[in-house]
C-alpha cells in the first residue's frame, strides 16, 4: 500500500455516495480521477485489504436478530463443545477468549424467536449454560481504523 491507497481506504471507510457516478464523486474528493480510483480499489480487493465494497445494514431491519452469547467451557471439552456450537447455521462466528467465559459467539437468525430456540438447543446439546447478551444500545464509532 502506498500513500494514495491509504488515503483511499481512510476516506471510503466513512462513506460512499449513492449517486449515478459514485466513484467519480469519491475520486474528486481525493483529487484523483475515476479510472485511477477504480483501478486502485480493484487492486486493494485483489490484495485482500478490502473484503467488500458496498452497504452495511442492520439485521433487525430485515426482520432478523443478532446477539452475542458466551459459555464457560471446561478446557478438556472445548473442542467438542465448539464442534456442537458451530454445527448450528445460526452461529455466525465463534471466538475463544481468555476468561472463565471462554467461548463467545454471535448468533444471527431470521427472527427474534429463533435466538431463544437456538440457545436452548445449544444448552441441551452441551449441558452448559449460555449467557445471552443482546445489544441494548450502540454507541456510534466515528473514527475507523487508520490505514
Amino acid at each position, binding site marked *: 500500500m502506498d500513500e494514495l491507497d491509504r488515503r483511499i481506504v481512510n476516506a471510503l471507510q466513512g462513506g*460512499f455516495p449513492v449517486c449515478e457516478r459514485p466513484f467519480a464523486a469519491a475520486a474528486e474528493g481525493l483529487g484523483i480521477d475515476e479510472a485511477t480510483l477504480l483501478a486502485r480499489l480493484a487492486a486493494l480487493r485483489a490484495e485482500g485489504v*478490502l473484503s467488500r465494497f458496498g452497504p452495511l445494514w442492520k439485521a433487525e431491519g430485515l426482520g432478523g436478530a443478532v446477539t452475542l452469547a458466551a459459555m464457560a467451557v471446561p478446557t478438556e471439552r472445548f473442542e467438542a463443545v465448539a464442534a456442537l456450537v458451530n454445527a448450528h447455521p445460526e452461529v455466525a462466528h465463534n*471466538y475463544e477468549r481468555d476468561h472463565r467465559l471462554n467461548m463467545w459467539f454471535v448468533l*444471527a437468525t431470521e427472527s427474534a424467536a429463533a435466538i431463544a430456540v437456538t440457545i436452548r438447543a445449544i444448552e441441551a446439546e452441551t449441558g452448559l449454560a449460555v449467557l445471552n447478551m443482546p445489544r441494548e444500545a450502540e454507541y456510534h464509532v466515528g473514527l475507523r481504523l487508520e490505514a
Partner: protein
Amino acid sequence: MDVTEAERALLAALADGLPLHPRPFAALGETLGLSEGETLAALRGLQARGVVRRFGVVVRHHELGYRANAMVVWDVPDGMVEAAGRALAAAPGVTLCYRRPRRPPAWPYNLFCMIHGRDRAAVLRALDWAAEAAGLREVPREVLFSGRRFKQRGAVFGPAPAEEVAWTSSTAAS
C-alpha cells in the same frame, strides 16, 4: 420496518459488494431488471429507513496491520453508561461499542467495546487512553484478548449485517 421482496433481492444482489464499474448502480440494476434510477431510489429508501447504515469499504483489519484485538468490558453505573459509551466510541482504536445486559453473578459487565491495535501492547495503550478519555479509570473492567476463531460463515441474509461484519473483520485470519 418492512422490507419488500424487491428490496430483499436488491440487498442479496449486493452480497458481494458493488461492481467496480463507473456506473455501478446501473450494472447492479441490470441484473435485477431495474433501471439505474429505480435502483438508486430503492437504496436511498433503505438508507432513509435505517436498514442500510452506510455504503463504504469493509477493510480486513489484519491486512491493514491490526493484528491484535481485545473485547474490553466494564461495569459502569447505569446513570453513567450512556456518556461513557459515547466517549469510548470516540476513542482511537475502538471499533465497536455496545451496552449489553449484565448477567450476575457470572457476568457483571454492561458496557462492551472492541479495541484493535498492531499488537497487544498497542491495544493496551489504546485502552489506557480510552479509559482516561471516558472517565472509566476507576470502573471495574476486564480485557479479553481473542484466541482461536472457530467459525465464520456468510450471513443468513446474503450479506452480513453490520455488527457481524465488524466482528468478523476483527480477527487475524479474516
